[in-house]
């Protein structure tokens, strides 16, 4: 008899937990209905990441050239072509899927516009999921190369996978047009099929540093880095770019996965800098920004594309206000954002605009009569025209002739 008492109690507890969880799921759908609890909170306008200026490597503003008309994927509707396919390769599932889906959606928007306008030239898009993993990408690449209907590739999306499979596409002579792989070394492999539709990481660091010093006139900046390849590399470039403005006495190093930064915050607070630059991702950047604000640090919070994500604003809340976030990616024009929202029921994300522009360039090539892989590579090599995000013209290395960085601000 006695033995049944703990068993009963334990079962009751487990049941209670189960009920609590079930209660959460059923009630949470009408979140915010309790007005007494939310009377004072959540009333402020929603913060979001807004484009501020486009800067060059001296940190000076470069006005977007409004004289040119962005290329329209629809063309004049008179194009005729045999049915061809464009491939898209990137992470479509897994933890980094958001980025791949941004790219796929942007390209789909361009292709749908094209196909709707040109009844005699139907281009299809085939998607290849790499999960952002170099190893998976090496398994996918041969399938892409073997499919002879594919004459151009949008991707690969990440630098690691691009490095792994670049030689395969180069050998096949298949155009590889990336909307998001920003590692500077990728264009140093001698591949003649690889083109990058945005600035690389070696441009971002110096441009942002120059913007902070020359335009915002910050005299003392604390550079904080995480332990990822990305964070370490970026911090090095920022620190070099800042020169004397980078104060080594409050430079700090944190770990990916850390959530509390008290020691770094206290030291930074004591140094009273003009700005704190965080080289890392939003998962740590967001709590770091909140903890800085909570301990009374008034310095501007600056970070780069690793933190340029709606999640940063969601998690840092009010502490994200006025933060500067750079990105080689361009902002979405209003009409593009409206069309995108209507089609995918989501706001365009980072790299959606680049994907749209690059898909448009391939479509223009197809409309102009290109029918094979070599022809499309040549077309891109000689391309010179405006897109939604920027002017596209490539150097022989595959880098853009004019690579600019966008500065965004949370407002």
């Amino acid at each position: 008899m006695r033995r049944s008492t703990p068993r009963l109690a334990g079962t009751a507890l487990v049941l209670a937990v189960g009920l609590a969880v079930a209660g959460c799921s059923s009630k949470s759908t009408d979140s915010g209905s309790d007005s007494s609890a939310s009377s004072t909170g959540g009333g402020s306008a929603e913060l979001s990441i807004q484009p501020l200026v486009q800067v060059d490597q001296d940190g000076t503003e470069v006005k977007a050239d409004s004289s040119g008309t962005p290329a329209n994927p629809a063309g004049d509707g008179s194009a005729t072509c045999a049915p061809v396919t464009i491939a898209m390769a990137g992470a479509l599932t897994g933890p980094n899927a958001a980025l791949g889906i941004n790219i796929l959606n942007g390209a789909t928007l361009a292709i749908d516009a094209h196909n709707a306008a040109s009844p005699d030239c139907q281009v299809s898009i085939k998607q290849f999921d790499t999960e952002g993993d170099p190893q998976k990408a090496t398994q996918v690449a041969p399938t892409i190369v073997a499919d002879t209907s594919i004459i151009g590739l949008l991707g690969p999306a990440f630098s690691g996978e691009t490095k792994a499979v670049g030689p395969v596409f180069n050998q096949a002579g298949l155009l590889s047009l990336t909307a998001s792989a920003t590692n500077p070394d990728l264009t140093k492999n001698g591949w003649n099929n690889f083109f990058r539709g945005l600035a690389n990481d070696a441009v971002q660091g110096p441009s942002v540093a120059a913007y902070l010093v020359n335009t915002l006139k910050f005299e003392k900046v604390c550079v904080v880095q995480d332990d990822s390849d990305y964070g370490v590399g970026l911090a090095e470039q920022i620190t070099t770019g800042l020169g004397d403005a980078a104060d080594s006495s409050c430079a700090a190093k944190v770990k990916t996965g850390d959530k509390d930064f008290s020691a770094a915050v206290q030291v930074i607070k004591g140094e009273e800098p003009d700005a704190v630059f965080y080289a890392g991702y939003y998962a740590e950047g967001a709590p770091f920004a909140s903890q800085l604000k909570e301990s009374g640090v008034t310095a501007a919070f600056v970070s780069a594309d690793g933190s340029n994500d709606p999640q940063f604003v969601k998690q840092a809340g009010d502490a994200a206000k006025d933060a500067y976030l750079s990105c080689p990616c361009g902002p979405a024009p209003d009409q593009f954002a409206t069309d995108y929202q209507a089609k995918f029921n989501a706001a365009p994300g980072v790299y959606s605009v680049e994907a749209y522009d690059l898909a448009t360039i391939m479509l223009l090539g197809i409309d102009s009569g290109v029918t094979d892989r070599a022809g499309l590579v040549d077309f891109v090599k000689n391309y010179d025209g405006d897109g939604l995000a920027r002017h596209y013209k490539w150097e022989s290395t595959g880098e853009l002739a004019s690579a600019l960085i966008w500065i965004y601000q949370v407002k």
Partner: protein
Amino acid sequence: MSSVLHAGAQVLADPMIGFDLGALARNFWALTIDGLTYGSIYALVAVGYTLVYGVLRLINFAHSEIFMLGMFGVYGTLLLLGFTPSGNAYNEGIPMTILYLGIALIGGMIVAGGSAVGLERVAYRPLRKRGAPSLVFLITAIGASFVIQEFVHFVLPKLTNGKLGGVNAQQPIRLVEPVDVFSIFGATVTNIEIAIIVSALVLAFITDRFINATKFGRGIRAVAQDPVTATLMGVSRERVIMLTFLIGGVLAGAAALFYTLRVPSGIIYSGGFILGIKAFSAAVLGGIGNLRGALLGGLLLGVMELYGQAVFGTEWRDVVAFVLLVLVLMFRPTGILGESLGRARA
């Protein structure tokens, strides 16, 4: 040649390990207060490790996940109360805030305590019935830790319609904004820090009294000291084990509330791991199996970690914590207060 000189200058300009006593002196009190805040959170979690070790001689590595579930319990309770995640703090006024925090505390304690007991029943009791060797328990603990993490990562979002769990941290619900209440020696103390340190000390005191001055506590100490004799004297070992897991879980639930007050965006499936390792180290530092040792070890580790970061640089945080641990164990292999739970008198 010039590049060699340049490299030399670089090493001088950016030393791998710094030594800056000035930074410690300038921020001493601020660091102490932060350290005590985190230390009291470590201490509460450490109790769970130490009690289970005292009774079962088992290092329950899944305890960090109990803490993590406690965070989700706190968050889920706040959602049930009608709070929605937003950038702003709610600031409902002191009495209501304390009430809401009290309810969230109970929610966290129920979820964490319940899952600790559930874990014991599902993972450990069947092994004990079959007389499995202690290594099997250890591996089970690590396995259970993964299962719980992946449950919150992949299954919980499906069960709760995306409201809880998943790959990203929960969007924070901030009930109170930190407000400076008073300052000692130039370091300001916020309302949140006072609340955390005071409540943790109260909970620690209650736990200490419970273990040392009640019938149930006597049972726990008896089983820790000598399970066979305790059973012969009429103490139910199974009940004591369940009670031990329950106390550890409940305290982890409380620690979860305090942690989320301090780090509102820390509620994520992987959020218990690092803190769990720190709390386990705190338990060993104070003397594993010793309740007061765990409390002391937690506070000490929290403070020393921050001092160490100020002196040597923030990237040396974990190194400082573990060097301290190694040094203490070299001179006192049983930890600062030594002794097992059963004989604790200190």
